[in-house]
């Protein structure tokens, strides 16, 4: 290295080699610190599902016998949890665009840190945030009348965490590709509404006419919602439950592959 004059501190080039776990933790801790310092966003993203539970949930109560479920919240809360998992996570890309603009992403990319860690640390923050939000959501629903087995709720939260990780990875990859809110926002809006309506999050698709059911059958998220509902019903052995979980794993792998690929690519 530098042979000229005496450099005051010793060069860091002989330091320990990069480890994915350590870099992931560094990125995670930094992202978490930023989120906690500006909690407005966390509160806003939680407010929406809570409003759904409090202001829309009661409308379902008189219908619950028709929907074939024990109580309305047992049906509604899993849907809202899935919604939180997908849509909360899809919007994390906006933060990445802001970081990119500030030069933070570039400056992290010139470090020897593992590219995977740069993504994984951020996704882990998102998953932790999601789990806290999801738990709060379940707790808020209890006084309103939610009754569900604890195991079912925990299993659902695991599925939601995985789903959130998948969509957060996709969101980061897209954000890093588009690099502009003006391109990213319309894309999300174009995707979000049809997916929401075709997933049976608000009302089960069993109420839908045949043609609409057929279309929604293609939407993997519909099966995730139905799987989560089975977990909330304590129906752990049903194929519906495990189809949902299996599709979530598949989406998780796909989202992760997409995200890592984008983070490994050079930035252009």
């Amino acid at each position, binding site marked *: 290295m*530098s042979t000229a004059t005496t450099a*005051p501190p010793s060069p*860091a080039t002989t330091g320990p080699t990069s480890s994915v776990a*350590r870099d992931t933790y560094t990125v995670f801790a930094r992202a978490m610190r930023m989120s906690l310092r500006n909690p407005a966003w966390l509160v806003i993203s939680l407010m929406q599902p809570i409003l759904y539970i409090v202001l829309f949930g009661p409308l379902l109560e008189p219908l619950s016998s028709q929907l074939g479920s024990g109580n309305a919240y047992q049906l509604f809360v899993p849907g809202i949890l899935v919604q939180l998992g997908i849509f909360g996570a899809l919007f994390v890309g906006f933060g990445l665009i802001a970081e990119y603009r500030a030069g933070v992403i570039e400056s992290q990319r010139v470090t020897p840190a593992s590219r995977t860690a740069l993504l994984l640390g951020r996704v882990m923050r998102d998953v932790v945030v999601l789990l806290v939000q999801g738990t709060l959501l379940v707790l808020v629903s209890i006084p309103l009348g939610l009754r569900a087995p604890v195991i079912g709720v925990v299993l659902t939260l695991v599925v939601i965490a995985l789903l959130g990780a998948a969509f957060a990875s996709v969101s980061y990859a897209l954000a890093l590709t588009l690099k502009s809110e*003006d391109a990213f926002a319309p894309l999300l809006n174009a995707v979000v509404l049809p997916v929401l309506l075709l997933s049976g999050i608000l009302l089960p698709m069993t109420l839908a006419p045949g043609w609409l059911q057929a279309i929604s059958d293609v939407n993997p998220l519909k099966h995730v919602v139905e799987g989560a509902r089975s977990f909330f019903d304590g129906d752990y052995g049903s194929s519906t439950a495990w189809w949902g979980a299996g599709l979530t794993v598949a989406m998780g792998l796909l989202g992760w592959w997409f995200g890592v690929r984008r983070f490994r690519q050079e930035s252009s």
Partner: protein
Amino acid sequence: MIHARGLARTFRKKKQEVHAVAGVDLDVEAGEIVGFLGPNGAGKTTTLRMLTTLLAPTAGTATVAGCDLVTDPVGVRRRIGYVSQSGATYPDARAGEEVVDHARLYGISTAEATARGKQLFRELDLDGLWERQPKSMSGGQRRRLDIAVGLVHVPGLVFLDEPTTGLDPQARANLWQHIRGLREERGTTVFLTTHYLDEADALCDRILVIDAGRIVAEGTPDELKSQVGGDVLTVTVEHAETAGRVAALMAALPGAEVPQVLDTRVVGRAPQGGAALMTLVRELDAAGIAVAGIESRRPSLDDVFLDLTGRSLRESGGPAGPGGPAGADRTADKQPQEMAR
């Protein structure tokens, strides 16, 4: 420190190939401050992004800080610092945390990183700003913070991309002081890009001039200036119609080039400007031509640039310029902002 051969990068935009960098050879030795000078869109940032592993070259080879750019990018990353044009810190973070977080990505412990960061804050006149948010710092402070981030792992080689763009004159002069200090106090090799001639002149041991993706000249500022044939003579006449006669007189000076006439201004070049000026004054007086001003000056790097590329560097950067090349490839990291507008 840097040895590049035939380094090139071709972008594909709308099915058109853009040769942002078309084969660059360069060598930078340890302890040098080397300036990469050129107008916007010349390929400076693209070259820098290749040398810092952010962009893969489409052709050519390079060794940076002893590691091969293509086969050992991680080795390169470990040994270099890079201060990009767009900064390195998040506006809402805390200054000190940004430095420590960055150091952690090099595997430096938090305690060690904090000690080094505080030392850098002292050296870069950022004392007392450790807890400050970058968004509430001045432009000059933020720039020095970026440099602190880029230096916290004590790289032997640091790349500065347009370090003083957007700073006021005082902050620029102050930053130059600190950049010189990097070499003098830490023995750091500095490779910087700039489109400011005075910056290259004041700061750099050696200058590489890049235009349209190629290096068109290199040397010390003095070497480059002496390549320009002689000193620059400028005569401003009272009446534009006499300018032609002045030009004829100027052209007749020993060793002079054919001068240019710009309305009432006649600009030419001649060796030994002082002596040429004396001759010219006598002849103008004898011819009875009314002169408003006359001067001889050493050529500037702008003259060098004009000589090499046929256009003035100021055209592309200056606010009064007639537009200049519209930064076709500009910096890749600026594109999204521009597209977003």
